[in-house]
């Protein structure tokens, strides 16, 4: 008798298994309806032309041909990755430093205050954040340039320049999500046993050596987690460029998700939008596999 048959023939075991599925069902149903379903729909739609109002017409592989010959898509992907990689690296770097600083001997209430302050922007709506920043970053009427002017720096066209606008997006995005990285790193730091530090101190190491040879290697799983999740999220950035620059000037801050939205809901090209969305899925999937493959070289598990 197979294990399954044994389980199903035993009424108690059967009840246990069914209960398990019952508890899992909300998540499973949600997953199927909101994730698997739309993905399948996107795959199917990518072979049609559909403007949402008239019935869809089959288009074969035309959308894929268009994908490969789209003059704007290449630079849009490049822009997206420039922004995404910059934000993830900055968040990792700054998040780690702040987490380590928060781990030092400071008053508990001070530590709590800083943790709250850093985490607070993370829970605020991205659109609200971007709206406020759009006021601050206005070249001639905003406060950031006013402060820069006080130290003699010329007004920077934050929201209206191919050079500076991506930086504006990066700044607002890092400001918003940094708290999450800090909190995760703080959690990661807690898992490092104090004995290791004590032993190292006894051996005559200084603060920096302890950070480099104990903290950093033992944090590599956390760094891997954050870089995988971070990159997947960062590549899909939408709210900040939408509110701050609407993708401009030209396509300088247009991200892939913005392009998908534009094709689908501005140009009513749902078929092509689905195709671009699928390409993004493939790209992200490939990147994630690469990250995990390389992780064996630098991630150290205790």
């Amino acid at each position, binding site marked *: 008798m197979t294990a399954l048959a044994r389980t199903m023939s035993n009424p108690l075991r059967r009840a246990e298994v069914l209960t398990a599925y019952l508890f899992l069902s909300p998540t499973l149903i949600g997953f199927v309806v909101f994730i698997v379903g739309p993905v399948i729909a996107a795959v199917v739609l990518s072979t049609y032309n559909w403007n949402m109002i*008239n019935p869809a017409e089959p288009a074969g592989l035309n959308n894929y041909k268009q994908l490969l010959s789209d003059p704007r898509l290449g630079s849009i992907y490049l822009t997206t990755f420039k922004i995404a990689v910059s934000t993830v690296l900055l968040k990792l770097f700054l998040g780690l430093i702040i987490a380590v600083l928060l781990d030092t001997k400071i008053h508990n209430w001070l530590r709590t205050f800083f943790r709250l302050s850093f985490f607070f922007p993370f829970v605020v709506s991205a659109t609200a954040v971007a709206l406020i920043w759009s006021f601050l970053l*206005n070249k*001639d009427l905003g406060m950031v340039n006013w402060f820069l002017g006080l130290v003699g720096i010329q007004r920077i066209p934050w929201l209206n320049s191919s050079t500076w606008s991506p930086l504006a997006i990066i700044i607002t995005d890092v400001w918003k999500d940094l708290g999450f990285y800090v909190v995760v790193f703080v959690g990661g730091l807690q898992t490092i046993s104090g004995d290791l530090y004590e032993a190292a101190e006894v051996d005559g190491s200084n603060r920096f050596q302890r950070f480099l040879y104990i903290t950093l290697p033992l944090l590599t799983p956390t760094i891997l987690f954050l870089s995988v999740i971070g990159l997947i999220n960062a590549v899909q950035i939408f709210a900040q460029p939408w509110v701050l620059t609407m993708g*401009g000037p030209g396509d300088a801050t247009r991200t892939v998700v913005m392009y998908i939205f*534009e094709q689908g*809901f501005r140009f009513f090209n749902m078929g092509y939008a689905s195709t671009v969305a699928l390409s993004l899925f493939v790209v992200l999937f490939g990147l994630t596999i690469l990250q995990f493959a390389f992780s064996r070289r630098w991630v150290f598990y205790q």
Partner: protein
Amino acid sequence: MHHNLLKRSMRVLLVAAVLLLGVTPLMAHQAKPSGTINFAFWNYGPDAEPGWKAIIAEFNKEYPDITVKLVSATGNNWGEYLNGVATLIAGGEKLDLMWVATEGVQLLVNQLKIAVPLDDYIARDKAQLQEYLDDVNPQLLKAFQVNGKQYELPYSWNPMVIYYNTARLKEAGLEPPKANWTRDEFLKYAQALTVDANKDGTPEKYGYAFDNSGVFVSAMPWIFANGGDIVSDDFCKPTVTDPKVEEALQFMHDLIYKYKVAPGPTPLNTLFQSIQTGDVAMIGVGRWALPALYKAKFTDFDIINWPGNPNQLTEFGIDGFPILNTSPNPDLAWEFVKFMTNKSVEERLVGTVDSPLGNVPARKSVAQLMSKFPPKNGLLFYNVLDGPAKLVPAPPRFNQMESIFIRYTGSIFADEMKVADAMEAAQKELESVVKCG
């Protein structure tokens, strides 16, 4: 026998006739319109829904049995709202009516073919509507005619005019601009109103500022001032390489980089603050700036016609309520459309003492009420129609056209692309979007 049969049939016929005559008025009396209509409206802000609920409450006083269900769609401008409605329709929402502006007329009528021509309804109820039709400027009525058929009755509209801060003008020792001022005179004003007190090359206060987030508010008024347009009159091809268009864009670019009288493109909502603080002395906008200025109790401003180069041509956009052919109750929807032409409804557009709204009513008699509110020259909002005026260009694929056009003008105003190169590239992209057949 035969004689009796005839008598009997006559009696039956007589009874039937009497019954019919008696019952018919009864039936007519009972045929009060009843049912539900779904009405999509632009939910542009917190005042939108309560405003419509109030109008529907008034409608229900006259037609208590018609339920008007509000369906909300959001958006930063008419174009974005249109996307929202298209998405609703695609999602299966059965709409009877929607609130639609110029930007959507061609799409609904010619591309999607879901708008119902109103001519038969208008002819049937001519007696009731004549007073309204006489009260509305013919240019507004014509704006909703496609292929000779009337698809909407004008409800509210907006022209683009120049607002100026009167205190700043006084400060600079300038007289208020004349109604027929030219673009060259405008430039002189803008230069006189730009202040660089510490002479460091960057002004502290600007003479003029504009927004590049949409076609209506940014380049069109200047292109019209040149006598140009970005699409042909039949909407069959783009015309952005026309020298009149390119010159207008060059002028706007030069305002920022050559004459330095304007900051980079700034959202209108920010400019509503800037004109109050005096950071910017002149902005171009329609009547919808009024609520923000009125709530802040700001009165140091007035309006004037858009300058001509040299001939003036005011840009305007207008909205109303097309009945959709997916409606199971077009007659009910028509009752609502007629109701919206009433004076009392349009008076709400002008606003109440607590809250002036932001559109210009289609009825001239009601528009006179605008004089209750600032600015002093407020009646100009309607009276621009005494001179030449032109609708914002709205081919069927308006959203696509706008998306492409402002992408390129954005590069021009960021000083990253030359006007000629930008418009050449725009023309190519627009050709696949603005075409006939």
